[in-house]
C-alpha cells in the first residue's frame, strides 16, 4: 500500500537518525544502561526530534513500543489540565511488558505558557517513578529553568545539505524516481532545513512524474505558497489600500492562515521583490514591528490592516 513517505521512511532505530550523531551516540548509551533521565530535545523543525523519541521507544520496547509511549502535542492540547489527565491515565495503566518506565513525549512544549510549564514540572515529579518525559521544543530558552534542570538537554542541529540530499536520494532510489541534481538543490533550498517538508515535497513531485526536474519542484513550491501575496504587496505600495486590505483578508480566509503566517509570507515576498532596497528595509522593519505587535495583541486582522497602511505610507 502507498504510504506517506515521512512515515514510511521514518528511522526505525537511533542509528538511522541522520546528521545528529552527537545526540544519538549518547542516547544509545542511555538505552544500553536501561535507564535514562527526562530528556529535552531542542532544535529546528524537521531535524529528527520526534524521530529520535520514537526510535528510543522502538529500541527500548521492541514490538510493543506503541503501548509504552504517549505522544502529546502541546500546541494541540488545550490547557495543562488535559495534559495532566492524559499523563495520569497513561502512567497508571499497567505496562504490557515488563518495562522499567514508560515514555511521555511532549512535542512543541515551548507552546506552553510559563504557568502551564510550572504545572508540568509538578506532573513530571509526581510520575517520575515509572515514566520519563521527553520534551521537544524549538528554543530551549523558552522552557523554564526548573524543567531544564530536571532534563538532560540535547541540541539538534540544522541538517546540512548533504544529509538532506542523501535522505532524499535514498527515498528516490527506493521509489524508482529519477531526480536530477538541480532539482535536489532546489528542494534543499525550499525546505529550509526541514527534512519532513523536503520529503513531503518530493512525494508531491512524484504525483506528477517519475522523472523529477527543477521545473516540477518549482511548480510544487509555487503551489504551496499563496500566489496572491505579490499582488497584495503591489497594491499596498501603489496607493490601492482598500484593494490590498481586502485581498489580505481574503488570502487569510482562503488558506486559513494565521496572522503570523501571513506576515512571514509578506516579508518573504518583499525580500524577493524588485522594490528599491532603501524602501525594502523600511518595509521589512514594519513587518518585524507588526509581527511583534501581533504577538502582543490579539486581533490579527486589525494589526495586519495597520501593517498594510504602514506599507502605503512608506511608499507614498
Amino acid at each position: 500500500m502507498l504510504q506517506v513517505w515521512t512515515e514510511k521512511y521514518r528511522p526505525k532505530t537511533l542509528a538511522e537518525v541522520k546528521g545528529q550523531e552527537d545526540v544519538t551516540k549518547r542516547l544509545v548509551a542511555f538505552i544500553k544502561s536501561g535507564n535514562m533521565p527526562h530528556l529535552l530535545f531542542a532544535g529546528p523543525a524537521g531535524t529528527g526530534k520526534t524521530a529520535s523519541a520514537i526510535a528510543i521507544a522502538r529500541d527500548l520496547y521492541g514490538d510493543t513500543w506503541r503501548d509504552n509511549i504517549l505522544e502529546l502535542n502541546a500546541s494541540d492540547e488545550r490547557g495543562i489540565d488535559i495534559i495532566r489527565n492524559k499523563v495520569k491515565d497513561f502512567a497508571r495503566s499497567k505496562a504490557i511488558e515488563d518495562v522499567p518506565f514508560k515514555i511521555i513525549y511532549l512535542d512543541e512544549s515551548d507552546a506552553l505558557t510559563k504557568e502551564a510549564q510550572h504545572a508540568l514540572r509538578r506532573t513530571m515529579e509526581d510520575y517520575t517513578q515509572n515514566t520519563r518525559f521527553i520534551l521537544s521544543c524549538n528554543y530551549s530558552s523558552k522552557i523554564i529553568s526548573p524543567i531544564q534542570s530536571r532534563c538532560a538537554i540535547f541540541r539538534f542541529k540544522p541538517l546540512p545539505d548533504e544529509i538532506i540530499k542523501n535522505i532524499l536520494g535514498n527515498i528516490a532510489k527506493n521509489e524508482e524516481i529519477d531526480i536530477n541534481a538541480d532539482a535536489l538543490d532546489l528542494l534543499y533550498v525550499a525546505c529550509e532545513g526541514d527534512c519532513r517538508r523536503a520529503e513531503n515535497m518530493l512525494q508531491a513531485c512524484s504525483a506528477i512524474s517519475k522523472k523529477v526536474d527543477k521545473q516540477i519542484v518549482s511548480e510544487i513550491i509555487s503551489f504551496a505558497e499563496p500566489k496572491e501575496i505579490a499582488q497584495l504587496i503591489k497594491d499596498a505600495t501603489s496607493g490601492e489600500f482598500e484593494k490590498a486590505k481586502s485581498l489580505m483578508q481574503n488570502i487569510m480566509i482562503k488558506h486559513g492562515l494565521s496572522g503570523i503566517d501571513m506576515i512571514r509570507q509578506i516579508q518573504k515576498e518583499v525580500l524577493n521583490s524588485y522594490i528599491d532596497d532603501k524602501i525594502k528595509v523600511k518595509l521589512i522593519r514594519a513587518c518585524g514591528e507588526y509581527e511583534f505587535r501581533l504577538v502582543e495583541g490579539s486581533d490579527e486582522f486589525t494589526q495586519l490592516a495597520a501593517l498594510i497602511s504602514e506599507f502605503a505610507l512608506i511608499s507614498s
Partner: protein
Amino acid sequence: MSKDKSPWIIKYRPKTVRDVVGQTKATEDLLNYIKSFDRQKKKAIMLYGPPGCGKTSMVYAIAEELGHELIEVNASDRRNKNEVLETLGPASMQMSLFGGSKLILVDEIDGLSGSQDRGGTTALIDVIKKTKFPIILTTNDPWSQKLKTLRNYCVMVQLRKLNVLSVAKYLKQILSQEGVVYEESAIKKLAGYVDGDLRAAVNDLQMLSSSGKIVEKELTLWKREQEESLFSALKLIFKSYNSEATSHVVDNLSEDLKMLSYWLEENIPIEYFNPAERRNAYRALGDYDIFMSRIMRWQHWRFMYYARLLLVMGVQQAKNDVNPRYVMHKRPEILKKIFIRAAKRAKIQGIARQIGAKLHCSAGMLAKDFLPYYNFIQENNPEMGREINEFLELDIR
C-alpha cells in the same frame, strides 16, 4: 398638507432675501458686494460660519431674487486643478446664456485640499484674478492653514450661529404649513439640541413628524437613542475633533468597544484618504487591541482607561482635516470574514487531528509542512491522493 414631496430642507429653502433666517447683517453685506462688484478690488467673497447657519441657502436666495444665473461647484464634485479650471474658468469669463449676470458658488472649500484636489487652490486663485463675475466661497473654518493664501483674495463675511428662537420660529412655520400638530416645548427642545444647525433641525423635524404630531416625550426618547447609537459615535470620531463629546457618546454605547473598533476598522479608508491619516488611525486601533489583550492576559482592568482613549481619541486625532463629504458608514464585513476563517481553520484542525497521530505531528506543523503538498497530490494525481487517504484512514466528506 402640501403636495410637494421633496425633502423639507429643499422644499423650505428661502426663496427671497427676506426668507433667510437670522442673518440680516450678512445678507446685506453679500447683497451690497454683488451690486457693487464692478468697483470691488477683491473678486471673491468668503462666507463663513458654523454648519447649517444658512450660507448656501443665502446664496441661492440672493441669486433667485436678483435673477442671476448660479453656477455651483460643491463638495460632491472632485476639484483638482484641471476640473476647477475646466468648469470655473470659462464660466467666470463668458456672459451667461441669456445675457444676464452670474454668481459662481464654490461650496465647502474646506474640501479643497489633500491629494484628490491637488493644485485646486492655486487654480482657484487664478480664476479669481480673472473673473468677470462674483465668486462666492463658503466654509466652516476660514482660519485653517490651507485657506491662508485664498483669504487674501476674498472679502470676508461672517454668518452667526443661529439662536434657539430663530430656529424654533422657522420650524414652527414649516409645521403649520405642513399641518403637523406639535407641543411647544418639543420644538423648543429640538431647536436647542441642534446647536444652531438649521439644516439638522429641519431634517430631524421631518423625521419626527412622520407620526403626524410632535410630542416632547417622543423627542427625548428619539434623541437619546440617536445619541447612543454607534452612528453618532462614528460621526463624532470621524467628523470632529471633539474628544469630550465623543467620550460621552462612547460611554453610553450599547455595543461594546470591540464592536466599535470593527466599525472603525471598516470605515477608516472611506473617511480618511491621506496615507498618514490612515496609518495613524489603524495604528491607534492596533494599540487598542494590544491594550485589550494585556487586560485579558494580566486581568489588569485599569488598562481599560488606555484602551478606550487609544481607540476613540487615537482614531479621531489621526486626521489632518475633517473629510467634509457625507459618508454612508459600512457595516463591518470583517465579522463575516473572521467567522469564515475560523471555520476554515477548524476544518484544517479537524483534518490535522484525524491524521496528526498517524504522522506524529501537531496541527500547526501539518498545516505548514504537509497539507499544501497533500492538496497538491489530491489535485494533480487523484489516484495517488485516494491511496494516501486510505493510508491516513482519512474520512473525506
